[in-house]
């Protein structure tokens, strides 16, 4: 079995384990005095972490390639990370609904009145087309260009997720700040690599002409 064959199962287990622990902690009373809130926060953070990790895979592969290391596993686990991130986001919404007593009207009011809910819910809705086009044949059916453009939405989702996280905490912004830094680094690496690519293959200019 090639080494890369382990990547997807390993990521899947790693991504789902926190959910198993969360459920078991809930039933054994390990979530503290306010278990609903704790579960809400943990699933939200896990969703964001997994989405950021899925966004990190391509820059990681490209950076490795620049130092002549050919990594195959990042591309393989990207989808698993994205889908499990979306799963946590969905569970996060369900727990939020439970927290508010499953009141759809209340959720709608919140979505309109509270910017952090508006932003979080928007991120969640934007995840839907990404999940729906995550199948292998979706790339072929949409065409590579269109699929790629659509999946750039994942950056929007992550940015909205960070903003949602930022606005939802009372005072301690260390978690949201860490997420923001990761997001900015990922953006930065992308821009850098894109410019290099343009400089190498793009329109002739003084620098590349000889």
């Amino acid at each position, binding site marked *: 079995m090639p080494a890369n064959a382990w990547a997807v199962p390993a990521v899947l287990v790693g991504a789902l384990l926190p959910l198993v622990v969360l459920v078991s902690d809930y039933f054994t009373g390990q979530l*503290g*005095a*306010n278990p*609903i809130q704790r579960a809400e926060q943990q699933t939200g953070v896990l969703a964001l972490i997994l989405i950021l990790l899925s966004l990190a895979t391509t820059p990681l592969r490209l950076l490795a390639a620049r130092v002549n290391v050919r990594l195959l596993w990042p591309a393989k686990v990207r989808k698993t990370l994205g889908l499990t991130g979306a799963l946590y986001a969905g569970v996060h919404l369900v727990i939020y609904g439970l927290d508010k*007593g499953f009141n759809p009207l209340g959720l709608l009011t919140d979505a309109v*009145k509270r*910017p952090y809910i508006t932003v979080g819910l928007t991120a969640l809705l934007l995840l839907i087309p990404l999940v729906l086009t995550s199948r292998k044949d979706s790339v072929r059916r949409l065409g590579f260009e269109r699929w790629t453009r659509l999946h750039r939405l994942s950056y929007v989702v992550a940015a909205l997720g960070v903003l949602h996280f930022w606005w939802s905490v009372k*005072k301690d912004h260390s978690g949201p700040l860490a997420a923001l830094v990761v997001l900015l680094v990922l953006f930065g690496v992308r821009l850098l690599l894109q410019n290099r690519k343009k400089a190498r293959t793009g329109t002739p200019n003084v620098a590349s002409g000889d």
Partner: protein
Amino acid sequence: SLPSRVYHGPYDTKEPMSKIADITGYNNYYEFGLDKSDPARNAGKLKTRPWTVQISGLVKKPQTVDIDTLQSWFPLEDRLYRMRCVEGWSLVIPWLGFPLAALLRRIEPTAGAKYIQFTSLADPAQMPGVRDPVLNWPYSEALRLDEAMNPLALMAVGLDGRILPNQNGAPLRLVVPWKYGFKNIKAITHIKLLAEQPKTTWSIAAPDEYGFYANVNPAVDHPRWSQATERRIGDLGRRPTLPFNGYGAQVAGLYKGMDLRRNF
């Protein structure tokens, strides 16, 4: 020895008391860390004896008094109060303490005194959270003098008939149950009477989110979340939040004619 627990005085709620484990294990006390479980973990090291409280400002009897002397001045009373956190959760807590009004009568504010300001200990050697500039240390809070004279306003030194656990604000904390929890300043070292309304820690940190009054008010949302409901710790669902945390009959008169949307 301490008096036996009686929770059917005129100010006691008839609601069931929260679990002591929740009262002493789920705390907002940023001097000991930002997580709710940090205070229980980190506050044990705080030395609460010897402890002095400095009383100054516009009073006839300014003094620095030892905490044991201070609490010996007054008969201690049990009070079962609701506590509503600004974050949307609540507890029912069996405090032991003395009315703030009794202390004020003893120290005798002068005619010009209009506000009472409290300051907490901020010792980075004992309080790891103080090394983090998440708030403007030391923590300080204040009340209008007529609020402070209200019989509900309590200086707590105990909990459930025992000495106050450190994570709950030992050796001396304020309890004003009609206001959000953050008004209930802990580990008090200074009490000062002032003519002008002082700034308070949370209103400095986020003036659009936390006001001076901080009265529990389901009609005035926090800018980022609703204050209409709350989770009583231990419950799965939420219950409606009551104006002045259900203490309107005792305190609503203090705010007659005030716009509570502006004075939040």
